[in-house]
């Protein structure tokens, strides 16, 4: 006879949550067998003595046969221009008339207008001369300059007029050469300007 159980209230619910039973086994039994021994690789290696280079020869030879030499440049290959000449006193004030003993300052700009096939000016000679009205050289100044294509450079030369200088119209000559003419240099451009000594 079953005891009478009171009915569960509606909000008390019972359920099963797992479904697998397990049980301990007896210890495993290994069947009788053998112990096997085997080799698995088949290659021994040993460090060697230093490698031996047989006695040989050192061979020397020539490999090319054409010399090429630069030719004399031609005038058209240079497109050098003197684009500006300014005559000033020693303080930079524009002037055209000077007294003896005064210093004249000559500023000018040289430009290489060269295009693709023109040459850069390498170690070109920039030369400035001042001549009195008898064409006597009163001043000579020069410098060497590199002027790549499409570039310009400004130069300033100073010259003190000697007290013994004669009065008159003086000429400034600015010249650009590839080198000294006696060394085969060619004249590229020349510009002139004048001032008065009185």
């Amino acid at each position, binding site marked *: 006879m079953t005891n009478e159980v009171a009915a569960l209230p509606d909000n008390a619910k019972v359920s099963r949550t797992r479904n697998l039973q397990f049980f301990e086994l007896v210890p495993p039994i290994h069947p009788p067998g053998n112990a096997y021994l085997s080799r698995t690789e088949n290659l021994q290696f040993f460090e060697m003595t230093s490698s031996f280079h047989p006695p040989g*020869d050192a061979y020397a*030879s020539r490999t090319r046969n*054409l010399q090429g030499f630069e*030719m004399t440049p031609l005038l058209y290959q240079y497109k050098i221009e003197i684009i500006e000449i300014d005559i000033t006193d020693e303080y930079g004030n524009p002037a055209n008339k000077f007294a003896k003993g005064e210093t004249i300052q000559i500023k000018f700009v040289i430009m290489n207008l060269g295009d693709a096939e023109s040459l850069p000016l390498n170690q070109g000679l920039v030369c400035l001369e001042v001549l009195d009205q008898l064409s006597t050289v009163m001043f000579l100044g020069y410098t060497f300059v590199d002027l790549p294509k499409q570039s310009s450079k400004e130069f300033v030369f100073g010259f003190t007029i000697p007290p013994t200088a004669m009065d008159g119209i003086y000429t400034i000559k600015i010249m650009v050469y590839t080198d000294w003419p006696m060394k085969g240099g060619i004249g590229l451009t020349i510009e002139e300007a004048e001032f008065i000594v009185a």
Partner: protein
Amino acid sequence: MVVKMKSPVNRRVFIFALCALISTLAIMMFVYTSIHWYNINEWPDITSSEGNHFSVVWKGFQPDYSNETPDYYICINNLKDEVLNMHIAMKIENFEDSGYWFMVGPYEPPPQGWNIEDCKIGFIRVDEIKEFVYENISKVRPDSIPQGIFTESIHLVVKAFRDPDYSDLYSQDDFFVNFHFIDLTSTAVHIIDQDNFDSETDEGWKYGYVVLYRVYRSWPASYSFYHYIEKTFDTYGYDNAYMIFSLYFPGPSDLTIYINGVARFKTDIPIPKQGWFQFAIPLDTSISSRVGIALSESSVPYYLDDVYVVLVYD
């Protein structure tokens, strides 16, 4: 001869002696033939490396193109510099069993007008192959050559040293380099062909075009091209023929000249800069000469002008 052996002992001694003799002869023959065989087949291999072991060995002109024309040809006219700086491309392959310090220099005093200085190449290790340009060579440009052409040889030497101070010489070998100088203004020079393009025609050149007033040696025209041009000159039957030409380079470039389809000349160094450069080469006289001028690809053109093919009278 018949030898009768009455005693068995004597017979055994005789047989033993005979066997010994035969064995001795066999051994001697084996030794002789062995020595002979080794002499032919193996010992030369062993002794040859010793026998040919000269150490530094000059191998001559070994270009990666035709080696028919190892000499240099130079036209003396219209050149910018009074002193001509030569460049000789060279190669040293050190297959010695040791590294050495190498040097190239004059072997004997050069002819008049030449200046040749030592050039230290540096250490070249075992099995290293080193290419370099021997530059310490210059020659005062002759003003004129009445006979039209003359040849000078310079005697050079390549040395291997054991020490970086180049004081302990190990081995050396000497060699000659030949230069032929040509004077276009000589009365001995006869012009076979001249192309200056001033007629505004291609004058037989192919793959380029004539340009006017732009770039020229002789006003107003030259022949412009980008990579390769060629022309065939009828040089067959002449005693000699040389081609002298002016080439404008827009920038650095190598130059290769083909004769009848074969690369025969390459500049020892690339032309270093923009400008006009002059070259001289010998042409074939056993057949006509199809001359090809090849330059590096360029986006700006090269220009050819003042081409002379000349015969020099003896």
